[in-house]
């Protein structure tokens, strides 16, 4: 019994010795735990642009587009959470002939209630204060084709490419 009490005191002494300023250095750090539901991200529409070329012209703004439709993604996460969206500003599209290319510049916008109608509505996807809807947790992401530069003004046909959009929680 006495031996057991000695062992307990010895352990306590060691702990106190390590904790004492005279025996140990001290370091602190902030511990953060992300306690959220995982995001779901659903693609509801791809991006498409239809251009009727103008002679000698290789750069087109969206006002030159014959028609276009934005990419649409629906994000669903925790309500009122701060988020960050990663969306490229442009994508290189490749002609079906494998050699000609076109640069499609993009404008990404987000809104908590619905897909916005144009690139001036909603909030820019790179806005630092972006949040999911405070009730539903949803965020509607629209990726508008903004302008197009073709490398060859006479390389008519179909061009295609892919972008990757990412959404995540931030502190």
């Amino acid at each position: 019994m006495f031996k057991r009490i000695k062992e307990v005191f010895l352990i306590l002494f060691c702990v106190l010795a390590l904790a004492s300023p005279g025996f140990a250095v001290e370091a602190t750090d902030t511990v953060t735990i992300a306690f959220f539901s995982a995001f779901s991200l659903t693609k509801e529409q791809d991006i498409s642009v239809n251009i009727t070329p103008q002679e000698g012209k290789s750069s087109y703004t969206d006002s030159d587009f014959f028609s276009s439709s934005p990419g649409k993604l629906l994000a669903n996460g925790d309500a009122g959470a701060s988020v960050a969206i990663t969306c490229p500003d442009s994508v290189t599209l490749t002609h079906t002939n494998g050699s000609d290319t076109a640069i499609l510049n993009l404008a990404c916008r987000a809104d908590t209630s619905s897909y916005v109608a144009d690139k001036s509505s909603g909030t820019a996807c790179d806005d630092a204060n972006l949040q999911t809807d405070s009730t539903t947790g949803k965020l509607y992401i629209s990726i508008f084709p903004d302008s197009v530069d073709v490398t060859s003004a006479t390389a008519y046909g179909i061009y295609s490419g892919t972008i990757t959009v990412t959404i995540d929680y931030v502190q």
Partner: protein
Amino acid sequence: MRKFLALLLVIGLVAFSAVAGASDLGASKDVNATLTYRHPLSLEVATPAGTLYIQRNTDEGTAVPIWSEAYGSEWATDYVSCDRDITNNGLTVFHISGSPNQSVTISSGNTDRTVTLTGPGCGNIDLQFLRICLTTSNGLHSTTKNCCGSGNIENLPITINLGSSGEGYFAIRPWQIRVDDMSCKGWYTGTMIIIADYQ
């Protein structure tokens, strides 16, 4: 030994923090982007209308069968009959080319699709080009003289598809006439305007 333990403690805290902030709760998705950079549309007359001979009060040949019914405000709607050999007179064949598989709308640039033909000075003839002749196979005209087969005539405007080749033919045929002076004989001319544009 003590420094080593302290270092382990710091490493442990930093590692825990890093794990807690990992992005495995986020999500990513690929979005496809497609640009259709279309060929400029080309529309040209492949076979001109030529001359449509109109003869009064006859039921045969290349003539208007019911000339008298076309008088005044009434339209004669059957003067170009499919079972009559009208050769290619009055039938204008157009060649169109553009981007493959794109839809194109064909319409008339004339008011009410009607061309007023001016004559020798004593009267005019209104000629209405209502009809486009299409084949059933590719949606475009085959350039044969008789494009009046059942099921291949449509009113303007109409939307056609250029198909995999991106080109083809269609024909506009006269449909009905209206004459304001039956006694005014001679040559009448006018300009038909046909517009093609991507849909």
